[in-house]
């Protein structure tokens, strides 16, 4: 099922590349060798916007700078296999395969989840790209079909189980708010990395023993940076709404992001 969803994203990548005038080998080779949706789309965007090789490559690699972290998180999966399998497995390391592996507790199931998911995603991503290239001209604007909503939705669905843990959820919502806040000012890919401040804040909040219960509503109460308490407070409120209601949260957070973007 995730494979089909990724196939849909692959279709949109192929179709976007072709409809904006790239030769067919570009999306096809990228999907085979890079195999990272965000990086491929970012590099393509920059190239089509007139950016050079260096800018396109840098943006793609910054977007992929999270891969070593995922690699460390699933290192037990890739550490227990022989080198050829490890090299192949490394190529299969993507957000979804890492998320699937991390959702499994047992080592054997983790490994199976990682490799099956990774291989399936690779096949579907490339089939999707091929289909998108073929259908590119006929389809017109992929945005009209809403295909751009598929990729974030897939990631959201994968991360939902991990969000049940309150501390992780607070860190994640804080991180997301930070990423949104700095998106207007930073080059693509960096805001997501800046979001890791959310982990540090949550760790600091949890580590000051005793104050955890009381610290709840205020989040990282007593953290050193002055920006922290306010930002944290705001995102916690929206965070509360996200779980049950959903809609209000997004309205709130991107009201702010939108305002900054327009400013």
């Amino acid at each position, binding site marked *: 099922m995730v494979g*089909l*969803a990724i196939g*849909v994203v692959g279709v949109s990548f192929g179709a976007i590349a072709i409809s904006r005038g790239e030769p067919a080998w570009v999306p096809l080779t*990228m999907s085979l060798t890079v195999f990272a949706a*965000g*990086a*491929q789309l970012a*590099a*393509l*965007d920059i*190239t089509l916007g007139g950016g050079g090789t260096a800018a*396109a*490559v840098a943006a*793609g*690699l910054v977007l992929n700078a999270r*891969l070593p*972290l995922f*690699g*460390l*998180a699933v*290192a037990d999966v*890739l*550490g227990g296999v022989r080198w050829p399998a490890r090299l192949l497995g*490394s190529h299969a*390391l993507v*957000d979804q395969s890492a998320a699937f592996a991390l959702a499994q507790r047992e080592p054997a199931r983790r490994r199976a989840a990682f490799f099956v998911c990774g291989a399936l995603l690779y096949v579907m991503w490339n089939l999707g790209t091929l289909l998108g290239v073929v259908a590119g001209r006929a389809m017109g604007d992929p945005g*009209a*079909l*809403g295909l751009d*909503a*598929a990729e*974030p*939705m897939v*990631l*959201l*669905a994968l*991360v*939902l189980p991990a*969000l049940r843990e309150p*501390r*992780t959820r607070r860190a*994640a919502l804080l991180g*997301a*708010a*930070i*990423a949104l806040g700095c*998106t*207007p*000012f930073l080059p693509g890919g960096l*805001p*997501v990395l800046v*979001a*890791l401040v*959310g*982990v540090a804040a949550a760790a600091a909040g949890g580590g000051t023993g005793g104050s955890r219960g009381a610290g709840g509503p205020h989040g990282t109460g007593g953290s050193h940076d002055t920006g922290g308490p306010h930002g944290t407070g705001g995102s916690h409120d929206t965070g509360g709404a996200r779980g049950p209601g*959903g809609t209000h949260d*997004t309205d709130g957070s*991107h009201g702010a*992001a939108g305002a900054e*973007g327009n400013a």
Partner: protein
Amino acid sequence: MTPLAVLLLAVGTFGLRLSGPLLSDRIELGDRARQLLSASTTVLLCALVATSSLTADHAFAGWARPAGVLVGGALAARRAPFLAAVVAAAATTGALRWLGVD
């Protein structure tokens, strides 16, 4: 896009992929570090969801895309079949755009 750009992106990306497992051979991670790593992954993914649903080209992406993502996410949270959630997400976004909401 130049062949050189594709090549550099491919080689660089593979290097990043391989560096995680390679590093883990050299450093031993405690429980606390593992917890933090796992939380980092979740935070990164959430930030990716937020930025890729709400922003495009450093500005607000319009209402249609986040609406689709929310509809799909709500279905997934209610344990609807994954493909149904994905189709609902794309359909919501597509329908909103067709109605003139972007």
